């Protein structure tokens, strides 16, 4: 179990940047989207998302803005920055190379 947790930990930034890159979004929507797209694979305490989001914001990879919905509810929407897009592109390229290399070793017949 800890191996999966480590894998998730190592790729949290990439996953979050990818989701924010698709569309400006807020914390709760990110949690739901992660669970939906991964078919429930990613299980984590929802609160641990916020330190990760705030770290990305501190590194200027995303930017948070408060918005009030028509029903009066408030949401802090996150937008990806130019720097964030550049970092995401680099991470995706690195991930692609890495997964190709791993697959070539673990499943040589499909590589």
């Amino acid at each position: 179990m800890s191996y999966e947790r480590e894998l998730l930990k190592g790729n949290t930034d990439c996953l979050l940047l990818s989701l924010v890159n698709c569309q400006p979004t807020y914390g709760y929507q990110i949690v739901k989207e992660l669970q939906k797209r991964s078919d429930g694979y990613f299980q984590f305490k929802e609160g641990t998302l916020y330190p990760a989001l705030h770290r990305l914001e501190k590194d200027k990879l995303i930017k948070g803005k408060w918005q009030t919905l028509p029903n009066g509810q408030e949401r802090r929407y996150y937008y990806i920055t130019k720097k964030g897009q550049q970092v995401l592109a680099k991470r995706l390229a690195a991930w692609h190379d890495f997964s190709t290399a791993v697959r070539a070793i673990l499943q040589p017949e499909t590589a």
Partner: protein
Amino acid sequence: MANKLGDYLDNVRACLKIDSAARGNVTREIRAHLEDRSQDLKKAGLSNEEANKTAVDIFGSPRLIANQLNAVHGQGTSQEAFLAALPHLLVAFLFATYYWQNVLCTSITVIVTAGIVVYGWFHDKPMWFFPWLGYYLLPVIVTGALLVYLHQGWSWIAALAYLPLALFAIAYVVKQTASRDWLYVSLMLAPLPIAYAWLLALGIGNEFLTSNTPLARLQVNTCGLVVSFLVLAIASFAFVRVGHRWCKVAILLIPLGIILISVALTGGGNVTFAGWLILIISLVAVASPAWLQLRT
């Protein structure tokens, strides 16, 4: 149970050691998340109580999340770290160049420092501001220490008048700083034991007005004095850059302890038993926030 979300948010808020603006943002954001989750759970058929309880359980331990947020927000940028190190660098510079003997240079430094302290005090007390604030406690403490050397009788009268005022000023500043974060009290107080140790080591006190010996000793030990403030500058820089709270404690207290022992040994026989006692007490005062950190 109706207040489950409110209690949870209070717990998070109590564990957060970040500036008030960031704290407000964090709690607002967590509240929005918990309300959304609770709403969805109610739609799924849970009662109000069950939904709130489950939302909080799924969110995770308030202390764990607050600690992770503290680590993110407690880590300053390089610019903030440099600003935190700057007052110590200024002191080192004043002594290295002997500009401390120049009234104009010293006055400019004092005025600039005062301006920075006033700015920081009224701008949400950023982390880099606390070392600057510490230097404003220095005259209060040094004046108190020098009262001991007044003519017998006068020293008691002066001490009786001065001590309550000084203690009030120090307690007020410490309280204000602690309301932000206890660790910043350590950062703020760090220059005080070093300055006091140098005063003891150089024999400034009863010889202060009567001989040139302390000045001669100061010139001999200028290099050591400059190095001690440079080390403090590096420690303050690292303190701001590091995120984890226990690393901050170690980064500040270990160099401080080494500096104090080195300075006291430099003074040789000048440091009396009472001097050592006061030094130890001042080091304990600086280290006490770490103890409070252990308890929370």
